[in-house]
């Protein structure tokens, strides 16, 4: 990603459109006062509302989040409950909507529909969790490096380079190998361990451009302290590229979790995960493709929704990249 260019364009957009620092105009409120110039966030929101892609992905994500939060609403079947006598690899009944046999049964005689529904939580949690940790750590380090420069920048940047140099999946596998029982939080931390570098880099470059803006100089001239300048002036104006990168990466983390679980290094039983189910399904795919297709389909749909949202947000925040 051309971080620096993006930071500059954002900054130009800021200079063009934003007279007062962006944060002082909450998003969405300026709709009625259409004669007033909109802030970056207002502009982005206006832009988003007019994109069908945004709405499709939002509805999808809303649905997925509801499933993740309340799987019981969608199925009453225990996803760990196998019935080999009656349901060993039963084929799907595609017309039995929301019934346990909708997607068929797997090689343990468990309802694939129930497993797909209950697996949602792990995937969403991992995606959102990793993104949250990565954004927090990455943005903080990037901001410090960008704002203070000098030796702070050197140390943080070299550290980022080192972590960036470690292959992401391979490194995560090595970390996860150290744990025998891998719960959701372990996988989140392992993925975040190597995932924060790109966020740190993006934030650093956009902070460097933001701190040179006139309003920062003005604030400093007015006697504002470092933390006030950093959090009230620099951060709100430099955070946009960070959010874009984070949103797009979210989908990637979900598929990374599935990849690791497929390899037997991600989440472990009794946690239910699409990756584990895909891995198990792949062994009987020759005669029973349904065991693989439904969890894989849900995974693709979720990743697709997050990446689509990320795309829409990027387009809205970064008009010049369109």
């Amino acid at each position, binding site marked *: 990603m051309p971080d620096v260019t993006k930071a500059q364009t954002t900054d130009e957009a800021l200079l063009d459109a934003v007279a007062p620092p962006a944060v002082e105009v909450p998003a969405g409120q300026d709709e009625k006062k259409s004669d007033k110039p909109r802030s970056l966030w207002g502009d982005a929101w206006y832009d988003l509302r007019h994109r069908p892609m945004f709405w499709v992905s939002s509805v999808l994500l809303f649905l997925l989040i509801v499933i993740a939060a309340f799987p019981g609403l969608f199925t009453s079947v225990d996803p760990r*409950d196998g019935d*080999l006598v009656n349901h060993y690899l039963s084929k799907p009944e595609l017309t039995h909507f929301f019934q346990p046999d909708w997607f068929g049964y797997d*090689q*343990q*005689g468990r309802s694939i529909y129930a497993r797909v529904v209950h697996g949602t939580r792990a995937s969403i949690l991992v995606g959102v969790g990793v993104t949250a940790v990565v954004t927090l750590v990455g943005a903080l380090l990037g901001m410090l490096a960008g704002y203070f420069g000098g030796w702070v920048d050197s140390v943080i940047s070299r550290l980022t380079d080192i972590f960036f140099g470690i292959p992401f999946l391979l490194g995560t596998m090595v970390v996860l190998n150290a744990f025998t029982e891998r719960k959701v939080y372990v996988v989140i931390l392992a993925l975040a361990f190597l995932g924060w570098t790109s966020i740190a880099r993006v934030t650093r470059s956009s902070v460097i451009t933001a701190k040179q803006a006139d309003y920062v100089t003005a604030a400093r001239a007015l006697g504002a302290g470092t933390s006030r300048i950093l959090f009230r002036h620099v951060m709100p104006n430099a955070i946009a590229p960070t959010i874009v990168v984070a949103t797009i990466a979210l989908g990637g983390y979900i598929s990374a979790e599935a990849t690791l679980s497929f390899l*037997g290094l991600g989440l472990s*039983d009794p946690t239910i995960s699409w990756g584990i189910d895909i891995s198990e399904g792949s*062994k009987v*795919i*020759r005669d029973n493709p349904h065991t693989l297709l439904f969890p894989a389909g849900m995974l693709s749909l979720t990743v697709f929704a997050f990446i689509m949202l990320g795309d829409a947000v990027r387009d809205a925040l970064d008009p010049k990249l369109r």
Partner: protein
Amino acid sequence: MRGARSAKWVAGAIVVALAATACGGGDDTGSDDMNKGKADPNGIVTAQLSEPQNPLQPANAKESQGSRVLRTIFAGLVDYEPGTGELEYVNAESVTPNDDSSEWTVKLKAGWKFHDGTPVTAQSYVDSWNWSANIKNNQTNSSWFADIVGYEDVHPEKGDPKTDKMSGLKVVDETTFTVKLTQPVSYFAYKLGYDVWAPLPEAFFKDPEKYGENPIGNGPYKFVSWEHNKLIKVRKFDGYKGPNKAKNGGIDFKNYTTADAAYSDLRSNNVDWIEQVPTTALTNYKTDLGDRAIDQEYSAVQSIVPAFYTKTFKDIDPKVIQGLSMAIDRETITKTVLQGTRTPADSYVAPGVLGYKKGALGDIVKFDAAQAKKLIQEGGGVPGNKIQIQYNADQDHKPWVDAVCNSIRKSTGVDCVGDPKPTFQADLDARDNDEVKSMYRGGWVLDYPVNSNFMRDLYGTTAAGNTSGYSNKEFDELSSEADKASSIDETVKLYQEAEQLLAKDMPAIPLWFYKVNSGQSTNILGKIPYGQDGDPIFDQVQVKQK
């Protein structure tokens, strides 16, 4: 006929195979003419092999691949009738015990020769055993000689050996020698069928290492060449005097790295026999191969074993373990998840072994959810109401572990999850270091076809195979009494009594017996005969005339 593999834990019968091979064409299904045609006495059989771990020395193959080659090159003193496990003499004229089975006299058949033309004498055996037992020579299977008087002198726990000869071995004349044992073992003759007891020619002792690359034996085949990681060739030895003369011209052992590659080569007749059908082809191999599919039981058992040093099982009432056993629906799991590759176990002892009794464990291995629940309640329940089953994830164990857990959870409400270790080595390490958290997966292939091998060598307090911390004085006493019995029949009978004792005490939950799922090419005449250890009896394989 051919006998035992080493004392070793089986990693699993199913080879892990991730890639699903495309279903290649070719209408090579069901050949009715498998039994038609004439045998070619000089036809070459090609068979699958992985690279042997060690040089080809008789006591240096603890794994099945080296052992597979060694057993074609050597003929032991005795061998076993497949199916019944009855003893038959090969190189020995007779193997007879004294009154209390503590001293054995071995008489050899006269006139046998090694492949290099030197005679096979009593000295060839005694020298071979002395060399293999010696700690300096670092042979993986040297502990097999531990029964012989003087073993401690050549293989002390620490330090250098005092001598290079075991005092229990005495050459009487050219074809006779005696073996003195530290304690009576009524079935000692049965142990002699295993690879480690082979004789060695004088050429061996000049340069054992060089010999390991170019072995000279006394068996039905002589060694020709070894291209590492590629091919091992053995050819019929015309001077062979034993009962099991080769019915083919020789064997080419071809190296394969994946089960999928071997399977597609079998289907295109580029290899005549493979070890195991890949998992991905299990549902279809019978339709792919028709008559040529091999679906054969062998003497190995899989079980789950409670680690008795854990909090959960420290003071457990055996009734609880019986209950867990009855909560497993073996019948359904073997038919579905395991796709018919195993048969439900009904005994601690595998079939084809002396002393195996059908249904020996009675109702304890029958699925009965209500009774299982009742027994667990009577026994005071499982502490923590949760168990884990440790297994190695580098092989295909997860499906059946999950199925067993589901069965237990569903019928008794005891929570159960798998505990995967990344490799077989890590799995074994955890067992050896008493680090198993709850229960572990165990598998055992016979070493010699007597039921003691499945009980004393696994559940005896000091047995090498006992890694669960199980100890039962009554059982130990009964088994040493059984070893001292005057006849093998009596030994077997006493061990059958011991099995009933184990059924009450539950040192392990037997799950199922292994099967070979394999196939043969169209070049082979008739069905490939199998030994009790799940390997073909290569000298009896016939090749069709072209």
